[in-house]
């Protein structure tokens, strides 16, 4: 079977798997970014309770395996009365996992904004929330964009694990095709190429563009 025949026969399934992977990626990325921001800020909070919750979240999700977290959320939470559809369990697990790494990026970037910026905002009598929103976060965002690019690629690759709870993503389709045809090289080869294209030609250029926008906003471009 030539590669063309393979694509003609199974292209539609690979395409539908790719769409599911893209949806998983997008939704997981939104969760990761929101949670990272909350936990990153929470870890810097003066309130011990908020700080404690953030630290526990980061420790649990960064310190244990994504696959185990996925199984927990999908197979164990129902025992406590929380049942999620597999599609939701998939992107929520991946998002929460990556968000714990992101939280450290947010915290690190905020702490890297020079102290003088805090002091200047303080001297203008800005409230703590306004200092953060107007002065510190916009600068921290510029500092954390490059590592976020890496993290989002990690996130994309992490979504392949959702196939293990039968979310019909790209990896799931590749495994199904392989199981029924034994065309391992073609099925997994196609998955490999699609993941690479998504990372290299969608995520990376998008992040570069964001970095350029940030540089322009800082008057450096």
């Amino acid at each position: 079977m030539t590669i063309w025949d393979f694509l003609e026969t199974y292209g539609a399934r690979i395409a539908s798997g790719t769409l599911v992977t893209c949806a998983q990626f997008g939704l997981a990325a939104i969760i990761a970014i929101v949670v990272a921001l909350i936990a990153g800020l929470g870890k810097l909070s003066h309130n011990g309770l908020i700080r404690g919750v953030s630290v526990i979240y980061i420790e649990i999700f960064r310190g244990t395996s994504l696959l185990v977290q996925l199984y927990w959320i999908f197979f164990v939470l129902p025992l406590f009365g929380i049942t999620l559809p597999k599609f939701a369990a998939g992107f929520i697990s991946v998002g929460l996992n990556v968000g714990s790494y992101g939280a450290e990026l947010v915290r690190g970037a905020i702490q890297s904004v020079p102290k003088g910026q805090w002091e200047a905002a303080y001297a203008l009598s800005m409230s703590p929330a306004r200092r953060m929103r107007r002065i510190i976060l916009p600068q921290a965002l510029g500092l954390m964009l490059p590592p976020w690019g890496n993290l989002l690629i990690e996130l994309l690759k992490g979504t392949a694990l959702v196939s293990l709870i039968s979310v019909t993503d790209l990896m799931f389709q590749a495994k199904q095709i392989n199981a029924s045809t034994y065309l391992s090289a073609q099925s997994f080869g196609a998955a490999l190429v699609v993941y690479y294209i998504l990372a290299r030609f969608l995520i990376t250029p998008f992040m570069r563009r964001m970095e350029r926008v940030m540089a322009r906003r800082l008057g450096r471009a």
Partner: protein
Amino acid sequence: MDMSAFPLELPETDRPMVRFMNVTKSYGRLVVLDQLNLDIAAGEMVSIIGPSGSGKTTVLRMLMTLETINGGVIYVDGKPLTHMAKGGKLVPADERYLRMMRSSIGMCFQHFNLFPHMTALQNCMEGPVQVLGLSKQEARERSEELLSLVGMIAKKDQHPSRLSGGQQQRVAIARALAMRPKVMLFDEVTSALDPEVIGEVTNVIRKLVAEHNLTMLMVTHQMGFAHDISDRVCFFFGGKIEEQGPPDILFGAPQRDRTKQFLSAVKEAH
């Protein structure tokens, strides 16, 4: 600590713009300022000089409430700054009270600290819009007027990264003035500048002294400048005011040995 020795408010008849009353600041066991008493009258320009580590900058940072104090009370315009009245007693000020009180104080820093993600104009408008609640239109007019005053109106749409050190410091002065402070603090504002641009910043401060009735407190290493524009010069040594007086006397005929030593050491270095 017994706070009863400190009035809730200074009486009308004895109300300097700024009063440090027995103010002590220490880091652990290191005493940076020891029982400081200093009055600054409304409209007065006071310069602080002294060797590094003598507590000069700490005086400004305490007044900006960037540093908490360990003893004593600071009053601004008769009202306590570091403390607030509660049930007829002075208690340490909370965040909200500090924020309200420090809006009457403006500060310029050694390293300018302009916001890099905003243009010169936006830097000046930020405080008036976000803190004072002015409309954008009002804030823009006020900021443009001040940028003209410091000679930076032509560069108002530039980001700080496109400006020289002297230009950035002039914008920083405009930014602080845009809050209409009663007291302006200048913390070694020329120390990070190349020698050839120091003049453009000192000229702005000279203009402020000549044309505006602001109360100003300045820490500087430029003795000539301090001599020219100050109403009074304070020489700090070891966390205390070693000597103070009108510039002609302090620079021309200092009384204390440490002042003489310091001034002659500075003269030799130039």
